[in-house]
């Protein structure tokens, strides 16, 4: 047996570049054709005029950043993400801790809370309309309390309705992630702390939560990913031009696309893509320095 050569190759990092390429290439070609290469064209267009295609420098970017609709949509989108993601993470963690404390019989609750993610948006649109219409269920409820009915989707409440809808749909999936993390924790440390006289809150914040941190990256990324999908609800309920409080970047992009403002759209797409790229790099850095 020639053990030695194998030993040497283990010392320096072994690269499987050729084999890896065989596996990745199909996907890479697809991604290249449909996104990466055309995106280079989008970046080029973001510096060109819409009509004649002449180089206009940063003009499109200046137009976009001065555009009132863009300001409103960015503000709303950022607000939505900043409100929703922490809310979703905390609520789903609380639920997971509750469900986990049951030990037995918690399977049923997993299914119960996961189910909303399977319900198609188109199926619930009618129901949402009936609930949030001026003459709808919610207005009927507050009228009983002596308040005037509200046209919810055309008020500042619209934003919060989207938040609620996002939470309803996504809380179960996140909860399952937390639960998976919770089941891998060792109980002996927890029990030792209990013997040492640590109370429930101390054990939670000092022992349980720190061990769950590795799960946070995946949970945050998936929560962010799903936060962009509320556009479906927003669009199907309120159409292209909803109430100002829920006018998102997705609406704006859609409307610019319809009116063929490719120059502005290219600049805005480049901006949003850069922000997402920076965000993901930042998240990655944060989590890598954790351990």
């Amino acid at each position, binding site marked *: 047996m020639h053990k030695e050569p194998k030993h040497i190759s283990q010392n320096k*990092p072994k690269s*499987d*570049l050729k084999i*890896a*390429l065989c*596996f*990745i290439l*199909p*996907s890479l070609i697809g*991604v290249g*054709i449909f*996104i990466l290469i055309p*995106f280079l*064209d*989008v970046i080029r267009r973001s510096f060109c005029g819409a009509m004649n295609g002449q180089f206009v420098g940063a003009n499109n970017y200046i137009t976009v950043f001065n555009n009132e609709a863009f300001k409103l949509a960015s503000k709303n989108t950022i607000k939505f993400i900043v409100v929703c993601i922490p809310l979703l993470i905390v609520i789903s963690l609380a*639920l997971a801790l*509750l469900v986990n*404390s049951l030990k037995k019989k918690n399977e049923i609750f*997993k*299914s119960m*809370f996961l189910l*909303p993610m399977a*319900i*198609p948006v*188109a*199926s619930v*649109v*009618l*129901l949402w*309309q*009936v*609930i949030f219409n001026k*003459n*709808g269920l919610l207005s*009927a409820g507050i009228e009983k309390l002596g308040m005037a009915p509200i046209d919810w989707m055309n008020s500042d409440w619209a934003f919060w309705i989207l938040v609620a809808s996002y939470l309803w749909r996504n809380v*179960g999936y996140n909860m*399952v*992630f937390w*639960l*998976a*993390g919770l*089941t*891998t924790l060792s109980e002996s440390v927890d029990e030792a702390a209990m013997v040492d006289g640590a109370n429930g809150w101390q054990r939670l914040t000092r022992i349980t939560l720190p061990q769950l941190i*590795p*799960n946070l990256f*995946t*949970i945050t*990324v998936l929560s962010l*990913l799903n936060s*962009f999908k509320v556009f*479906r609800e927003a*669009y*199907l309920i309120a159409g292209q031009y909803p109430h100002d409080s829920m006018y998102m970047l*997705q609406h704006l*992009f859609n409307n610019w*696309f319809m009116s063929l403002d490719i120059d502005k759209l290219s600049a805005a797409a480049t901006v949003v*893509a850069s922000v*997402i*790229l920076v965000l*993901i790099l930042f998240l990655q850095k944060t989590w890598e320095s954790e351990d």
Partner: protein
Amino acid sequence: MKRKVTLIILAILSVVAWLPLWLLISGSFMPVDEINSTLGPVLNETEGFARWPLFPQYLDVRPYVQLLLDSPEFFKMFWNSLGMVIPILIGQLLLGMPAAWAFARFKFSGKKILFTIYIALMLMPFQVTMVPNYLVLDKMQLLNTRWSIILPAACSTFPIFIMYRFFKAIPKEMIEAIAIDGAGPFRTYIYIGLPLGAPGIISALVLGFLEYWNMIEQPLTFIKDQSLWPLSLYLPNITTDNLGIAIVASVIMLIPAILIFLWGQTYLESGISVGGLKE
């Protein structure tokens, strides 16, 4: 005692989570005249407030019969949806499984950068990739065909992210044991990777089905011809035309999604704890 309180809290929250589904199902059996009187204030703008009873006055299956026997366009859209979702999922698996395997099990230079790009692409909302997609589809003359939906979606990097975590969780020893038997990387992938990573593959399939069964933005942008639209985009249009079958149609659209979900939900949970991007 504490357990009881927890159970009560969870039960109340579950009811809240389930209420919409219950209302839809009970509503689908409501007789048409009952719908008109209870939902009239919202849909026909009659006086008063809408109500949505928890139980219909009596079970009426006529809306179901009407939809199933008398609405050819509904079925056309239903098949349109399947005709997009199934090829998308097949494409995602063919492209995604080997890529996810490579990210999870091979060492090569540039892997980290490439994987970061893949995650960033997965996070891009449709509206950002819409223009690049549009430019290519226009060049390929695929706009206004179902391939304009299928091809870009098949290249999505999301299933790779999902499967990666499951492939990564397969113990090294298990793979090395096989590798010693002289199997090359391809046989290892097919005989070890795919069977052991099956929960991840099913997870990706379930999430993919729910995603594309729900598709709104893509067909809205790339398909002008309404007869090619999937159900998810067409359904909201039924409401105004025919209230009686609108709720029934909502329920029927829901059935495949729920079935797939029930079939695959245990796989969504297993292997999920392997997070992060650890090398």
